[in-house]
């Protein structure tokens, strides 16, 4: 299997504080990898480090190309779409403007328009609210919008930071169902960070467990699902 993303010796720092210690991981092309761990383990930091949003060291390769030193916006333009913690809504723009912002970086306007239609078939709720100020959307709708903005970039890889955060169980189910079909139908590889470990393990084929900035274990999802001791120790269920 080829890796769409490969990180070696990835470290990250907030000022003098180190948050990530030489982490290694790889995401298979077309696969879904889950990154799990307790609060403060460094999950968000890992995603930020991949996108060069924090001071970091180590190498990251996208399809073999070294992206360690690229600016965030250039990494995004290479096909990495990051759905950030807190959703990153442009609250003062309309839903439509939030989505069409992607047109700024898309050369192929026809493909971008197709992606807009695609987004509306996945999230018909957003279509009903295109003219609405995005800041007035509910939390769940904003999460859908965040995923949609990422989709509008026509990505090869999506980095998802707690897409279930603060959402009602039914909405969470819906979002995960859609993520699965995005992965299967649009061939978008995914790295997903989740507190809801059981749900993430169902979606993912591979998993990395993070503790205080280090990878403690990794392997196929089934391995973790079947290892009760591991689950109890790190995932609390």
């Amino acid at each position, binding site marked *: 299997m080829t890796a769409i993303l490969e990180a070696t010796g990835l470290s990250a720092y907030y000022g003098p504080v180190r948050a990530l210690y030489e982490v290694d991981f790889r995401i298979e092309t077309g696969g879904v990898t889950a990154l799990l761990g307790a609060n403060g383990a460094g999950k968000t930091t890992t995603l930020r480090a991949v*996108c060069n*949003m924090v001071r970091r060291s180590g190498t990251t390769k996208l399809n073999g190309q070294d992206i360690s030193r690229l*600016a*965030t*916006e250039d990494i*995004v*333009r290479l096909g990495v*779409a*990051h759905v*950030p913690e807190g959703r*990153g*809504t*442009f*609250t*003062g*723009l309309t839903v439509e*403007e939030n989505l*069409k*912002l*992607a*047109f*700024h*970086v898309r050369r192929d306007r026809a493909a971008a328009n197709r992606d807009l239609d695609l987004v509306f078939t996945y999230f018909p709720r957003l279509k009903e609210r295109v003219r609405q100020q995005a*800041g007035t959307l509910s939390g769940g709708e904003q999460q859908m919008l965040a995923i949609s*903005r990422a989709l509008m*970039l026509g990505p090869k890889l999506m980095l998802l930071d707690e897409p279930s955060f603060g959402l009602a169980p039914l909405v969470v189910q819906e979002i995960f169902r859609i993520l699965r079909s995005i992965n299967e139908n649009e061939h978008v590889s995914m790295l997903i960070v989740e507190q809801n470990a059981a749900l993430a393990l169902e979606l993912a084929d591979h998993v990395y467990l993070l503790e205080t900035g280090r990878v403690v274990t990794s392997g196929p999802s089934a391995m973790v699902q079947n290892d009760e001791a591991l689950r109890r120790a790190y995932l609390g269920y």
Partner: protein
Amino acid sequence: MELLLQQIASGLTSGAIYACVALGLVMIYVSTDHINFAQGEMAMFSTYIAWALIQAGVSYWVAFGATMVIAFAGGLLIQRFILKPLEHAPVLALVVCFIALLSIFNSMAGVIWSFTVKQFPSPFPKGDLTGAGLVSYHQIGVVGVTVVMLGLLTCFFRFTTLGLAMRAAAQNASSARLMGVRVSWMLALGWGMAAAIGAVAGMLVAPIVFLDPNMMTGILTYGFAAALVGGIGNPGGAVIGGFVVGVLENLVGTYIIGNELKLSFALVIIVGVLLLKPAGLFGRVNVKRV
């Protein structure tokens, strides 16, 4: 009655110019949280460039367009080479930097073009609409040019993806980066546009107040008052604020405090707004719209 009409017309004219200056201030403020104290001097310097071009025999509107382009490039370069390196500097350092820019432009204009007052041509016919000296063609022209420019600017921000990217970058820089927007270039573009708008204000006001290196000092104060009245951070509000301040200033100057004290009225507005309604008249309703 005639005097009142005359004062309102001249108030709208100054208002149009304050609106341009305020808009330049707001454009930079929304994207960087900085007040560009050099906005007025940059406009004055651009106006000198237009003057020099016209002196060299270039026709008015060509000089007008060329000056806007030069001002745009100048604003862009200032952002790239002076402000970008100061990205993480404390606010005080930036204020000092703006004041340095202000005095550099002022003395450069003096050194290059001397401090003597110069006439600056108006592209509009002499005389006035009513024949009774109420509303001159230049006044109508100033308001007209401003309105057209604001219209174009509104269309740019509303209907182009570049305009949308600039608004997104101003609202949420890190999220904009995650959409592939080159935020620091958007800031530079904003600076360039603010400088070009300022240049227009300078060229429109120069035929009225005459051209000299200190031409924009008072106007910047009014522009700042206008931006505050509109709720700094709100471009539409800044424009309305410009017209409000322009008309009020003329009426208050004529009927109440006299023309010599008009500038202190701007100060009264600034202090008043800051004390009573820091968000400005339109600060809340529309704060995130461009």
